[in-house]
C-alpha cells in the first residue's frame, strides 16, 4: 500500500520540519544574526521586500534567514505576513523629485542637468571571485570606513540637493506631453483589495509589475528586445535613493512617516497611439520598485510600455499573459502544487482513457473483421 495516504501525515510533517532544521544546522556554524543579514545581504533583502510587497528590511532579513535564502519563499513569507496587517492610512503619492539620490544615470544624453551620478553599482566591476573578502574582520571594516572618510574632502562636497528629471527636457521641448490624449483608465485600483478584471487600469498594472518576480519580468522585457516585440526603450533616467513617505491622518494632517529606498526607471520610447497625422511623440514606460533593484525597475518600464500597445502576437504585449504569469506567489505556489497527490484526478483520467482505448480497440477489430469479411466475399 505504497502511496495511499495513511494516518501518518501529521508525524511525517513534523519529521520533515525537523529535517529541514537539521539540514540547516548540521554544519554547526554560527547562526547568522538578523542585522548581519539585513546589512550584508542588502540586495537580497531589497528584492524580497519588492516581491513581498512590504517595505520592512528587518522582516525581510528574518524571512531570508528562515528560508535559507530562497527568494520565492522569502517573498511569500512577507506577503503572507503583509496580508495580516490592517490598513489604517493611505500614503500620499510619492514624489521621486524629492529623492535623496544615491545613484542616477541616463542613457539618452551624455550630460544631463545635475550630472550623472554613478553611485553604488557593480556594473563596471570584474566578476572575479574574491577570496580576500574572507579576511574581512570588524577591525578591517572600521579601517576601510575611516579611510573612505579621509578620502572625502568636505570642502568639495555639494550641499544636499534634489535633481530635476531628464523627462523635463522632453516636456520642455514638446517631444512629450503629459496629456497622452489616448483614452487611459485613470482609476486608482488596488490589486490587494479586489481581483483584477481585464482590461486592468494602468494603476493596477503598475502595482502588479512592481510586485512581480524579478526574473519573470526580465524574461518578458528581454523577449521584447530580441524579436518577440517592438521595444527600443532607452533609459531616460534611472535613479536609486530615499524618498519621504507622508500620510494624512484621521484629522486631515499631513504627517511624515519615514523614508523608503526605491529604484525608479523612466524608459523612453515612441508613442504611436495618436492619430497617424499627428506629430510623433515620445512616451515613458515607468518602472518603480522597493530598494535597489535596477534590473527589475528597467524591465518593469519596458514591459509597462509594451502593455500599453496590445498585440496578441507577443507575450509581453499581452496584459493577461504578463500580469497573471509574472505574479510570483501564484506562479510559485501552483507550480509546486504538482507535488500534491493527484490519484483521484488521475484515476478519473485513467478510467476515461481506458474507455476511449476500449472503443478504439473495438473499432479496430470491427474494421479488421469487415476487411476480412470483404476478402471472404471476393473468394
Amino acid at each position, binding site marked *: *500500500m*505504497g*502511496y*495511499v*495516504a495513511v*494516518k*501518518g*501525515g*501529521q508525524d*511525517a*510533517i513534523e519529521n520533515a520540519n525537523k529535517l529541514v532544521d537539521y539540514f540547516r544546522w548540521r554544519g554547526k556554524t554560527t547562526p547568522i544574526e*538578523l542585522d548581519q543579514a539585513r546589512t550584508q545581504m542588502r540586495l537580497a533583502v531589497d528584492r524580497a521586500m519588492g516581491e513581498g510587497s512590504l517595505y*520592512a*528590511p*528587518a*522582516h525581510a532579513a*528574518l524571512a531570508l534567514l528562515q528560508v535559507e535564502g530562497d527568494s520565492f519563499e522569502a517573498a*511569500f513569507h512577507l*506577503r*503572507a*505576513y*503583509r*496580508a*495580516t*496587517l*490592517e*490598513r489604517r492610512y493611505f500614503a500620499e503619492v510619492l514624489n521621486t523629485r524629492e529623492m535623496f539620490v544615491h545613484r542616477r544615470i541616463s542613457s539618452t544624453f551624455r550630460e544631463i542637468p545635475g550630472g550623472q551620478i554613478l553611485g553604488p553599482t557593480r556594473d563596471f566591476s570584474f566578476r572575479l571571485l574574491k577570496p580576500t573578502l574572507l579576511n574581512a574582520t570588524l577591525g578591517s571594516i572600521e579601517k576601510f570606513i575611516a579611510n573612505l572618510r579621509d578620502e572625502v574632502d568636505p570642502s568639495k562636497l555639494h550641499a544636499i540637493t534634489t535633481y530635476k528629471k531628464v523627462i523635463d527636457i522632453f516636456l520642455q521641448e514638446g517631444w512629450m506631453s503629459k496629456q497622452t490624449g489616448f483614452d487611459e483608465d485613470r482609476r486608482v485600483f488596488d490589486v*490587494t*483589495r*479586489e*481581483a*483584477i*478584471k*481585464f*482590461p486592468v487600469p494602468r494603476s493596477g498594472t503598475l502595482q502588479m509589475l512592481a510586485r512581480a518576480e524579478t526574473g519573470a519580468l526580465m524574461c518578458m522585457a528581454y523577449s521584447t528586445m530580441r524579436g518577440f516585440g517592438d521595444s527600443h526603450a532607452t533609459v531616460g533616467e534611472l535613479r536609486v535613493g530615499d524618498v519621504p513617505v507622508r500620510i494624512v491622518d484621521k484629522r486631515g494632517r499631513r504627517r511624515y512617516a*519615514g*523614508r523608503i529606498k526605491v529604484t525608479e526607471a523612466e524608459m523612453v520610447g515612441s508613442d504611436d497611439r495618436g492619430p497617424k497625422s499627428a506629430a510623433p511623440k515620445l512616451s515613458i514606460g515607468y518602472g518603480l520598485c522597493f530598494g535597489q533593484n535596477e534590473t527589475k525597475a528597467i524591465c518593469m518600464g519596458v514591459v509597462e510600455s509594451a502593455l500599453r500597445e496590445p498585440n496578441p502576437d507577443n507575450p509581453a504585449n499581452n496584459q*493577461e499573459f504578463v500580469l497573471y504569469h509574472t505574479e510570483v*506567489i*501564484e506562479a510559485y*505556489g*501552483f*507550480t*509546486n*502544487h504538482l507535488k500534491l*497527490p*493527484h*490519484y*483521484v*484526478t488521475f*484515476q*478519473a*483520467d*485513467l*478510467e*476515461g482513457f481506458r*474507455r*476511449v482505448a476500449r*472503443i*478504439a480497440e473495438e473499432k479496430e477489430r470491427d474494421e479488421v473483421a469487415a476487411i476480412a469479411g470483404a476478402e471472404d466475399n471476393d473468394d
Partner: protein
Amino acid sequence: MIENIRFQESFNYAYIDEFTKKEIRRKTLKAVCIPGYQVPYSSPEMPISRGWGTGGLHLTLSLVGPEDVVKVIDQGSDASVNACNLRLFIKEMANCNVTFNTAAATVIQTRHRIPEEILTEKQILILQVPQPEPLRGVERHEAKTRTMHAEGDYAKLWVTLYEAYVRTGALRSGAGHPILVNGRYVATPSPIPSWDVPNLSMARCLYLFGAGREKRIHCIPPFTRVEPLEFEDIRFKVEEFVDVHCSVSGKNKAFMDEVYADDFSRSWVINDSNFLDKVRQGPRPPQRLFTNPE
C-alpha cells in the same frame, strides 16, 4: 531611521482580518444569489502556497466559528499530508473542533472529492478550485470568457465536447466535467471525478467553490438543478468500476483507488477514507447519495 522589529506573534481570530472576512462573506453571498457565477474577490495571500487550497481556506476561515466542527479532505483522505496541514492551521487559528467523521462536520473543506456519505442542510462543503473558468480551455482571455458567460455563449464548449466524442467515441474523459447550474451559468465542479458530479444536483447542503490563485468564488446553493453538459443522444457517464471490489471491505459502491503492491499486483480500495472506515465498522453503512451502476 528607527526600525520596527517587533514581529507579530498573535493573529486575528481565524487569521484573516475582519475587513477582508467581511469582503469574502459579501462576495460569498453574491455567489449564493447567482448560482454558478464566478464572483471576483480580493484573495489575500495566506501562509500556505497558492494552488494548495488558499481559496478553500479563505472560505472556511471566513465562515468558521468556535462551535464549528471542521473536516478537511485531500483526494478522499483526511490523513494525507496537505489535509493534516490545513486542518491543523484551521484548528489553531479558529479554536474550533476538528473531525474525520463526515456526519459530524459542520464545515468540510475538500480537494477534488465529494464525500460518499449524504450531506445535510446543516453542512457546508467547500471545494478547492485550481481553475474556476470552465471556458479557459477554449478561450484563454478572461475578458472574453466573462463576455461569453454574460451572453450565455457556450458554443465553443459544446463544439469541444462534440469533437472529443467524434475523435474518441466518449463524451469527455477525466475529472472536472463542466456543469450547467440552475439552467444559466456553465461552471466547473472543480476537478472532482465524474462519479461525484450527480451529487451536486438538488443537494441538501451548500456547495462553495473557492479559487484563491484565480481570485474567484462560485456556488451551488441547496436544491439547485445541476446538469453535466451532455447531448440528448450521447450521455454523460460516471466512472465504471466493472468487476471491481474493495480489497478491504469487499464493497463496490464507491469511487475506487487503484493500488499496486510492491510485486506490481493490482487491487482496489474505496477512496473515501471515512466512508471506508464506516463500511468496515458498521452493520448499517452510512446513507449514500446515489448508487453507482451495478
